[in-house]
């Protein structure tokens, strides 16, 4: 049974319960278990199902007593990770919107250069007939083609970015905490113990 008490001690240490409080709980627990053993009572008769899960038992007891020290906000990974993820998501969405806006309003120059590259291609002269107008206007045709596609593509990206930003504001932003709280409430587990 001392192993059980040691497991509890480790859990209290992990939960940053003050040493004096942890020592007191451990001493009481060890004395009770020793007395129960002397009486011929099983640990389950003293601890219930907590006898099979010392960490859960220890956490439940410490929480009920209100002796678990709250972790600093900067060290709490449950707070830090969502904040980092949220920052990355918002940055990506804003970048998407800006790119979409740039393409939609036609301010992107790089695409024009890439599309205009065929201008340097010399058409092979065909003796029977002069180069067709279509061949000569090929770069222009491409530009016109790209001119139609790019704004549409830009609009699509813009819409994706705006919709993503709206969804983020509704479901994942700090202002959406009440909505998340309602969703979490249905999955709260009391854990072991009657308390």
């Amino acid at each position, binding site marked *: 049974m001392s192993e059980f008490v040691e497991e509890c001690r480790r859990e209290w240490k992990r939960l940053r319960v003050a040493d004096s409080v942890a020592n007191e709980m451990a001493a009481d627990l060890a004395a009770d278990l020793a007395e129960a053993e002397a009486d011929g009572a099983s640990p389950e008769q003293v601890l219930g*199902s907590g006898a099979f899960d010392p960490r859960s038992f220890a956490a439940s007891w410490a929480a009920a007593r209100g002796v678990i020290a709250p972790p600093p906000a900067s060290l709490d990974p449950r707070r830090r990770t969502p904040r980092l993820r949220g920052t990355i998501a918002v940055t990506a969405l804003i970048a998407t919107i800006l790119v979409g806006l740039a393409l939609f309003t036609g301010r992107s120059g790089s695409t024009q250069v890439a599309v205009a590259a065929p201008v340097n291609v010399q058409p092979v002269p065909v003796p029977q007939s002069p180069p067709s107008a279509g061949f000569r206007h090929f770069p222009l045709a491409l530009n016109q083609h790209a001119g139609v596609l790019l704004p549409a593509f830009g609009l699509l990206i813009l819409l994706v970015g705006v919709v993503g930003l709206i969804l983020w504001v509704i479901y994942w932003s700090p202002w959406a905490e009440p909505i998340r709280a309602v969703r979490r409430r249905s999955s709260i587990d009391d854990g*072991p113990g009657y308390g």
Partner: protein
Amino acid sequence: MATTERRRTELLRGVLDLCLLAVMQDGPAYGYEMTKRLRARGLSIVGEGSIYPLLGRLERDGLVETHRAASNGGPPRKYYEASAEGRRRLADGVSEWRAARDAVDGVLGPVETGVAS
């Protein structure tokens, strides 16, 4: 069997604090001593919980007072006894329990408990 134990645990969940405050009326007691008093009155704590978290909550809420004292030949133990607020809570809780028990008995009382065929 597991269902029976779970139901029993659920039933006890709301009144075990009253049971602990009640057995403290026999005098201050440490954790295991309270378990023995409960068992002597017919209530065995064999289920999904233990009294320790509940004692912790009672202490946190100011419903019990504690002191350390030597037990019979053993190490010093933490003794619990009901505070004035705890005794008030016990009186209120017992009235609520009796009202609830009577209401439930009114519904369940006429039900035959034999195995249905």
